[in-house]
């Protein structure tokens, strides 16, 4: 029976190639456009660390007060905190794991004197950073917690840098010169596609991969200046030592809180700390603190461009219009073929078989639309890569899952659009139509 329907469907589609073409084009363009924008949007607004994003929290505390409150964020909190607060909160050890983070800019001198030196952005982090953010190691591992205390000159480097400087060999124990100081390699990371790089959104969060990590305390000892943003109330506190005692905001604090009770507990500890600061007279305002998990943090920082949201919306509006369009054309086909259907009905075809025939026909259109849509999605992704800066280039990709979803969506949408025309076709009366002849 299916074979017969398929044959009928192909015949009827061939009978009116223009209309068939229009329907397939409408569905193809609708699917192609919505899938293209969806694939970019999903990559940009997706969860960078789905297995742990609900356990990792960014800590914020208001140390400037309502009068001097920053205007960057709607709640008046800054994304960074002062060295004073970062140290004090770190010393409370109220979370399972915790890391202070800021980024600095250092020069790396290649061992091969013929190669030119390179400037690299280096995050200064605590040893917990690596297990917290699930950093995969190829060789070695993070430095120890006592190294965090000592501020030892140790580095963890990326796989890419290891390939570049040590030809991909196990470089554990090798020396690495940063800003004229010799550091020892303790770990080499494997490929680590953390996109967006939520712990440092200042520098190309979608394009850049961090190549070198040094201990936080080491960076403080080296008086490394920050490249990840600093807010001060005035710049009379310009020297590094003075800055450590100042209210300048330049350090992030991330904590790992595995269960909800830990979060509640941490909030209490954080508020108690702020209340203590108020008691001792450092803060002249009640505690104003916040902890946000990874997705809340990304949303709070508005890193996904607004245009992208509108593009996704427009694309789905577009898909909807395309389907309406296809539905209109299908209706027109049914109306045009009432005669054909009524004859078929008069010859004994049941309503069910008319419905079956129509469904096979719409499925064929859906499959053809999906194929066109797939081609257009590929083109669209290529266009996206060309049109967007390299920051986003890596993002616009297609995988097997996306392709599968797309094909199913196209067929389901086409059948959905074909339901009403099918229902209309099923209600064509045999006798009436024959009489009209």
């Amino acid at each position, binding site marked *: 029976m299916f074979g017969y329907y398929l044959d009928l469907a192909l015949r009827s589609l061939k009978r009116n190639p*223009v*209309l068939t073409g*229009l329907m397939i*084009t*409408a569905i193809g*363009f*609708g699917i192609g*456009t919505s899938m293209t*924008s969806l694939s970019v949007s999903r990559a940009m607004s997706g969860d960078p660390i789905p297995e742990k994003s609900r356990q990792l929290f960014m800590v914020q505390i208001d140390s400037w007060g309502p*009068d001097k409150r920053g*205007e*960057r964020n709607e709640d008046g909190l800054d994304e960074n905190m002062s060295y004073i607060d970062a140290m004090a909160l770190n010393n409370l050890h109220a979370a399972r794991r915790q890391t202070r983070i800021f980024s600095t*800019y250092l*020069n790396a*001198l290649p061992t091969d004197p013929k190669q030119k*030196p*390179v*400037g690299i952005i280096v995050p200064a982090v605590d040893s917990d950073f690596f297990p917290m953010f699930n950093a995969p190691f190829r060789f070695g591992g993070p430095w120890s917690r006592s190294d965090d205390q000592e501020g030892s000159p140790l580095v963890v480097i990326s796989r890419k840098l290891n390939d570049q400087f040590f030809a991909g060999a196990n470089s554990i124990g090798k020396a690495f010169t940063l800003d*004229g100081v010799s550091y020892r390699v303790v770990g080499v990371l494997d490929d680590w596609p953390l996109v967006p790089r939520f712990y440092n959104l*200042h520098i190309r969060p979608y394009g850049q991969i961090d190549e070198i990590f040094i201990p936080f305390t080491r960076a403080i000892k080296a008086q490394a*200046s920050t490249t990840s943003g600093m807010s001060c109330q*005035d*710049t*009379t*506190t*310009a*020297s*590094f030592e003075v800055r450590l005692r100042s209210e300048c905001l330049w350090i992030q604090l991330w904590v790992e809180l595995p269960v909800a009770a830990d979060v509640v507990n941490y909030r209490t500890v954080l508020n108690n700390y702020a209340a203590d600061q108020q008691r001792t007279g450092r803060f002249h305002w009640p505690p104003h603190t916040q902890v946000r998990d990874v997705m809340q943090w990304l949303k709070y920082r508005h890193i996904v*461009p*607004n*245009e992208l*949201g*509108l*593009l996704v*919306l*427009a*694309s789905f*509006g*577009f898909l909807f*219009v395309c389907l*309406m*369009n296809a*539905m*209109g*054309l299908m*209706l*027109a*086909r049914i*109306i*045009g073929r009432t*005669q054909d259907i009524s004859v078929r009905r008069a010859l004994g075809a049941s309503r069910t078989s008319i419905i079956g025939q129509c469904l096979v026909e719409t499925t064929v259109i859906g499959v053809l639309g999906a194929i066109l849509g797939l081609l257009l999605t590929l083109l669209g992704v290529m*266009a*996206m890569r060309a*049109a*967007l*800066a390299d*920051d*986003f280039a890596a993002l616009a990709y297609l995988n097997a899952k996306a392709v599968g979803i797309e094909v199913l969506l196209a067929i389901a949408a086409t059948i959905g659009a074909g339901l*009403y025309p099918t229902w*209309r076709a099923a209600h064509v009366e045999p006798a009436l139509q024959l009489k009209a002849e």
Partner: protein
Amino acid sequence: MKSPSARFAIYRKKSGAVLIAVQIAITLAILSNALGLIVDRLSWSARLTGIDEANIFFVYATSVDKPPSFTALQSSDLALLRSIAGVANAYATNSFPLEGGGWSMSADLEPDQKTASAHISYYFVDEHALDTLGVKLIAGRNFNASEIVDRDGSTAPPATGIIITRTLAQRLFPRGDALGKSLYTETKDPSPIIGIIDRLQGPFVAATGFMSTFTENSVLAPFRPLGESSTYVVRTKPGGLNDVMKAALSKLEVINGIRIISARSMQEVRARAYRSNRGLTLILGAVAFILVAVTAFGMAGLTSYWVAERRRQIGIRRALGATRLAILRLFQKENLLIAFSGVLVGILLAISLNIWLIGRFEMVRLNPTYVIGSGFVMLLLGQIAVLLPALRAAQVPPALAISGSRVS
């Protein structure tokens, strides 16, 4: 012929007509909102920085070994840059327009103000800056060489004089008496305004949000930034920027020790600053355009079917005396009626979509011109889309009424 259903067959083809009207409504809502955003972002990214963009490039130089004196290093770098044939002028700075990051702070009219009078971008310059940037001094004077103060990472000397943009001057001193008045910026010491320049954008690139609110508020302060990393602004004589840039790079690389040196033209900086935003805007434009096209094809396709289906009725009408023009008009009017109802719904949809978008995406407010313009576009498009099928309908011979067969 009394009831409208006799005049317009659409009343019997309700579902098809509703489908077209809904398509028009959605297309109109998306088109008018997209147009608003596209025009806003294109004009945003086309704004000029106020500097001589065609002839300016920037050099980043970072020392790897510790140079004996940053002051000596910088003056020898600048002397070399200015000596290159084709270079008009050069100076050292902390940042430049559209760089992406730089110094911003509040500027106050009184010391110890609780809320800022204005937010500003803060540029370090010397006496060569105005000439290098090609910005126009509209009041007051330039800095002189003796006013420029060394500034390394650990000091914050007061600015003994500042030059501000016209926009900032007008904002803080609406009566036009900015010159000679003082601002309080990074220190508690007053900085007297010695000059006003026509225009100079800040280094930050933002279409929305806090960072987009003070783009034109720039302040030039007489500082010589010293440290491992230097940023130089260079203006070339018209033409040959790329050659001069290459020459500058190769000459800087061989002096003043081991360094990491790179250069970028202002045109590259501009392209890079706006690329993603422009890309998304253009893609949005493409989607809107294809959407309009699909809607038009849909209307044409459906009308063709109605024509094919009603050939016999058309034949009868023709036989009863309707002219070809009357048949043509019938289909045009039919479409106008459908499209008009679609446009009306679409306008409401466009406004509610816009209100929702403003809340969610910091969307630009809908411009009534775009809504009405899009409405007219949709009406016109409908007329064009049905023209071909309607012309075919007008060709139906009156004899078809007699033959009695339904040709389709």
